[in-house]
């Protein structure tokens, strides 16, 4: 199992010594990726990351509109010359253009909520998609079953806030207009009284994103995950750099001590302490309800 970091700023990249690679986004064509760079910055950083012997995945995972397509084609051609480990996508437009342009860079299906079974993984694998990020709302048992039944290389979120919702609507700035205020460029929270939970919510030019209230922490599951998936993703989205660096070091320590359950327990507690919100196991042990009545 390799470790991929989603950093939240360029200056921290040198601080990650023991990970295997990075995931970054590109301005205008990515969402919920902590670090979104201009295409020029991506061109600049790519050889530096490769010099360190690390892999670089670039995520173009937002929903694509007709008007995005010229830019998307231009960026795909540029990215294809960088020798990236992979280009991540959700919208099928990226796949279709890459196929029609015969791009050589491997593709990563980053469907967020859609990768929930191995049949669909095999569908994309047979179309030439090498990697996939398993859905964030399925159980660990289902991830294991997927792993046992596909040749696709699997990635999964091991740490971070999970994206729950994406909208094209400006759901924060509209609210401020409605109440006569001004939205600031920061992360707000959508608070729900019955559960007493605050969900990080932010808006940019592409729309509004709502994140999970709690941060997934898979330290205790790493021995299983190590045998199950190929890449573990550590996301710094909405997490301050200093805290995330501590968590990153916790994970590296854990990966080096997979046989020591007691140590993993201790590290897991450190991760919880170093995190800016309560940590949980996401849906790894929670099966969602298919239908309420039979």
């Amino acid at each position, binding site marked *: 199992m390799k470790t991929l970091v989603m950093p939240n700023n360029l200056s921290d990249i040198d601080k990650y010594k023991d990970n295997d690679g990075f995931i970054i986004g590109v301005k205008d064509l990515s969402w919920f990726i902590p670090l979104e760079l201009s295409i020029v910055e991506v061109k600049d950083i790519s050889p530096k990351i490769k010099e360190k012997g690390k892999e670089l995945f670039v995520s173009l995972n937002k*929903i*694509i*509109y*007709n008007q*995005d*397509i010229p830019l998307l084609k231009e960026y795909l051609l540029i990215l294809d010359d960088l020798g990236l480990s992979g280009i991540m996508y959700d*919208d*099928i*437009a990226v796949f*279709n253009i890459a196929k029609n342009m015969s791009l050589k860079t491997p593709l990563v299906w980053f469907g*967020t*909520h*859609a990768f*929930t*079974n*191995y*049949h*669909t993984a095999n*569908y*994309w694998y047979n179309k030439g998609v090498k990697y996939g990020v398993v859905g*964030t*709302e*399925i159980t660990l048992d*289902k991830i294991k*079953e*997927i792993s046992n*039944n596909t040749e696709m290389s699997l990635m999964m979120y091991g740490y971070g806030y999970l994206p*729950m*919702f*994406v*909208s*094209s*609507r*400006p*759901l924060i700035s*509209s*609210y401020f*207009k*409605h*109440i006569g*205020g001004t939205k600031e460029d*920061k*992360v*707000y*929270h*959508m*608070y*729900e*009284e019955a*559960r007493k939970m*605050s969900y990080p919510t932010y808006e940019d030019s592409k729309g*509004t994103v709502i994140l*999970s209230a709690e941060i997934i922490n898979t330290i205790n599951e790493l021995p299983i995950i190590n045998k199950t998936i190929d890449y573990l993703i550590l996301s710094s989205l909405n997490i301050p750099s200093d805290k995330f660096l501590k968590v990153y070091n916790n994970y590296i320590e854990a990966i080096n001590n997979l046989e020591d359950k007691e140590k993993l327990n201790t590290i897991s507690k450190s991760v919880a302490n170093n995190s800016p919100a309560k940590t949980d196991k996401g*849906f790894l042990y*929670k099966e*969602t*309800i*298919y*239908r309420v*009545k039979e």
Partner: protein
Amino acid sequence: MKHSNKTLIKPELLAPAGNIEKLKYAILYGADAVYIGGRNFSLRANNDNFSIEEIKEACDFAHKHNARVYVTVNIVFHNEDVIGLEEYLKTLDDCGVDAIILSDPLVIEIAKRIIPEMELHISTQQSTINYEAANYWKSEGVKRVILGREASGSDIKEIIDKTGLDIEIFIHGAMCSGYSGKCCLSNYFTMRDSNRGGCSQICRWNFTLQDELKNDVEANVGYAIAPKDLSMLKYLTNLIDMGVKSFKIEGRMRSIYYVSTILHTYRRVIDEYCNNPESYEYNKNYEKILYRCANRDAIPQYFDHKSGLEEQYYMGRAEVSNQDFLGVVLGYDKIKHEAIIEQRNFFSPGDKVEIFGPKIDNYSFKIEYIKDDEGNILDAARHPRQVVKIPLEKKVNKDDLMRVKITG
């Protein structure tokens, strides 16, 4: 709106049907096609949905009335959900289903192998809003793509022009706040799987907006992300001109009255425009009828601008159920000139009402008296499903509907 001589292709009017009764009303009230869900593999998992026998009955009824039936197989599958899918698709084919609506591409692969002649439609759950993605689905043998509701008028036009695909769009009904298929609020809040039919409509809940330190942004002012409904009535002729293949009405869980009213209205607009575009004029009365039918405002949403301030609600709001629907016509007594009505909401003598139906023009009148089925005069029709008689000079037909007078 005036047009030069031109040939317009009449779009399909596609209706939701949550059960066999709703399906029959939808077809009688003008639907060219209906979409339904089976008991498995379909979103709206908590709806009645159709058994295999009912799907067969639906196809027989629809085909007898020159209408088509599409079945949703549009969940995002988990590993175990695939069990039985091949047999199910084969059974749908045997029933005479005209197309299946899918979201997960694994269904394409299986369908092409098991039922290669079946027409395949890509669900709006895929949030397809560009021609490259649409062209991919075309290369996979898909006949039709149901676009994401975020597509603007120019997006729709460009996708039609650059793909040649049959394009279906939603013209009326409830909206999601987020991109379809990209929202799992329901999973996180209630453990109900939004992409397998369990959506608990979290985007209609009331919240509070907090700042980065989790302090309320505005004391005592609620925060909401609830969208208003969609209505493309104002742009329907533009969409016909563009060559949109199918106009879809949302709402498999809606009432017979809602579906009949919406269909009856859009049917008229489509026919009036396509039959005689030169003399077509926008009819404000149709707005009144459509907008009263639901308990939320209905607006064009994304057609000509980005959705923003006016396209959503901000405060908690009680959604009062609509009381306009007064009764269903069961028959007409030609000798006594009385309509036989099955009551749905309270009405009494003196009320101004109207009856509409697939074969009659809207007919308004004042109720002079109400009798029960034994001929006793009543002061009101008070009880749901109570059968009463009211005087009516004009002949009405079984399955016409009576409502509060809205127009004129």
